């Protein structure tokens, strides 16, 4: 278990090139990740991707790995709109695209929460379960989320 890492995956009935396009082309990105307006994207390692998720909320995301059509990674300062993503203020988002029968397996990992400083308004307080149900259960829940 890595405690500060979230991994998720999904199988998509489309070729890897198509999924890569959804992850990197401004017109497609604007339909799932930069809804306010299409992002400016300098698609190369070290390049900047400017996501606009709402008026006044620009996320200056730094591309780390660009290997079409299988690997894409960037640092995303989701807690700091308007600030360029650095190692100190962001998490690392990594996409891995694998061809499988009938399409593509897309895996996403977001890591680096432990080193991140989170502003108070970004930390949810709702749903806090004050009832203690036992450590083992909670650890298992966290493991499921983190693995």
């Amino acid at each position, binding site marked *: 278990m890595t405690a500060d890492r*979230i991994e998720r995956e999904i199988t998509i009935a489309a070729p890897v090139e198509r999924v890569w396009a959804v992850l990197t082309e401004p017109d497609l990105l604007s339909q799932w990740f930069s809804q306010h307006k299409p992002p400016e994207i300098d698609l190369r390692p070290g390049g900047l991707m400017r996501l606009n998720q709402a008026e006044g909320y620009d996320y200056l995301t730094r591309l780390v790995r660009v290997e079409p059509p299988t690997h894409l990674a960037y640092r995303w300062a989701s807690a700091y709109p308007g600030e360029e993503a650095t190692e100190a203020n962001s998490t690392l988002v990594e996409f891995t695209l694998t061809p499988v029968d009938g399409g593509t397996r897309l895996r996403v990992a977001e890591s680096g929460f432990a080193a991140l400083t989170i502003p108070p308004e970004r*930390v949810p307080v709702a749903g806090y379960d004050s009832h203690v149900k036992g*450590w083992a259960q909670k650890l298992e829940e966290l493991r499921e989320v983190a693995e």
Partner: protein
Amino acid sequence: VTSAQVEEVLAALADPTRRRLLDALARHGEATATTLAETLPVTRQAIVKHLAVLTRAGLVAGAREGREMRYRLRPEPLTATAAWMSRVAAQWDARLDAIKRLAENG
């Protein structure tokens, strides 16, 4: 729940020895640093330092008993942190679903 608390919990959990300490405490219920040193391949001195980090994060609490401290788990901060990570993960599930729809309908 404060942001500092979530940060400290995640930082505390990022270390494999500290996760093993938490597992050991979950098995034993309560334990002293000496007992924990017998079950893990780490010196008692190192265990005391790790327990201090876990205490600051609110994940364990120590109570003096004779000459030693007895440590027990405190699951509440973990619950809050797990809830926060679940929310982040749920956001990714929603985004992956959106990517799937876009890719398959292109």
